[in-house]
């Protein structure tokens, strides 16, 4: 294997899961996410020689975002109307359960499903910022790089999405024994 490929695999491919998750938060259908990620990885590989600096993850996710908007434009040109976000059901797609605790597993699954639905119902630009912060644990600067908006916008979107999620989560889990701790 040549050196570039080896370096690419060492530096960029560790972020493949993050790229995949990000594409799923952007996309309307899981199949789209696969295509977007594959295209993004290829683009990243072609541009890899020009990558300066160490923030590989933000760089890769920015490419994913670009690929997503390109794909979206193509789709619209082909007159496919994307489903509205409220109908975006992610069922039927593999969810990774992260709990090793069998007693709570089924409650966890319910909560995961509820949460997933609530997240999906957020507007895309709010959802992506929130997930980049909380799940990918990126800082404001990285999120601004990925989403190409100023930091101030990142901050206000974060605030709004957190408030919305909190309110909806409380509504959904009201009266249930295991609500927000």
């Amino acid at each position, binding site marked *: 294997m040549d050196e*570039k490929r080896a370096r690419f695999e060492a530096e960029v491919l560790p972020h493949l899961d993050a790229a995949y998750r990000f594409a799923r938060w952007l996309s309307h259908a899981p199949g789209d996410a696969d295509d977007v990620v594959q295209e993004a990885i290829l683009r990243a590989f072609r541009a890899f020689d020009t990558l300066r600096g160490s923030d590989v993850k933000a760089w890769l996710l920015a490419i994913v975002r670009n690929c997503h908007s390109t794909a979206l434009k193509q789709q619209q040109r082909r007159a496919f109307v994307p489903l509205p976000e409220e109908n975006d059901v992610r069922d039927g797609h593999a969810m990774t359960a992260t709990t090793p605790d069998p007693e709570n597993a089924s409650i966890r699954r319910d909560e995961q499903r509820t949460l997933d639905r609530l997240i999906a119902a957020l507007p895309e630009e709010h959802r992506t910022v929130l997930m980049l912060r909380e799940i990918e644990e990126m800082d*404001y600067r990285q999120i601004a790089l990925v989403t190409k908006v100023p930091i101030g916008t990142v901050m206000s979107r*974060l605030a709004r999405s957190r408030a919305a999620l909190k309110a909806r989560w409380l509504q959904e889990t009201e009266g249930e024994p295991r609500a927000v701790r």
Partner: protein
Amino acid sequence: MRCAESLRVQAYFDAEVDALSAADIERHLEHCAECRALLRDLEQVRTVLRRDSDYARAPTELRSKIMRALDQEGAAEIQVAEGAPASEGAAAPVGTATPEGTASPEGTAAPAGTASPRGTAAPQGTAFPMRTPRPRERVSPTWRMRPFWMGALGGVGGTAIAATFAFLLLLPRFANPLLDQLANAHVRSLMPSHLIDVVSTDKHTVKPWFTGHADVSPAVADFEQQGYRLIGGRVDYLDHQRSAVVVYQHGAHVINVFSWAGRDRALPADATRSGYHFAFWKAGDLDYCAVSDTGWDELLGLERLLRN
């Protein structure tokens, strides 16, 4: 009505403020009930999201599809590199992707650089210095028709450049055995905000967090009784894999416990370097290394607890 400080409180929560602003915000929190409630909300949303979110991983089929696509891409690249070594040079004309924002041509001072969203009115309209990473122009098939390039430059220049590249890239790797990597990772972790990715004293939070983030799932336990307090977890890139790091505090000392898939290789002997002790052991399929500036007794004490 929202308190005017709410965005700063959020920035404080997200660890985006310097110590001075943090102290400022903490003073504000003392007498603003609304912001205290906000802080609790933020904490709750984070807890729920990190606990219940779908930490999906790229499916295996997608991964292998991508690897195959890269194989094809790589084959094309090699031929191009031989044909036109100049493209490896400094001035790559297309797709100058510099997310770090070095020398942005707009000349806008990168608003992002420093972590101080203190100025709450962050510039909304500033063009962000992120260059759109464009794909390098697709390799046009016409290069195949220029054997004269390949003869003249490809033979000598290409080989020389390739050799230099390989030398430069391989050198630090050979000079960097595991101990060096661990020492660097440990020192780096002690810099502000690098220590912990998931903050928790609860092993039931730390352990599942690794499933989504690291390549291995190590033993996680709290030994507070014995003086080793679990404070969180982190992922470090080590030995070509995403190793899981469990972070303990012992008195004033931080102990990083690295773990990675062992691959049947002998581990280095326990060692001391630059004031840090390194204790290695194997357990199950994993290799472990505890690193700290505590005394040997304390470090080996934690190793004993973890092995049991």
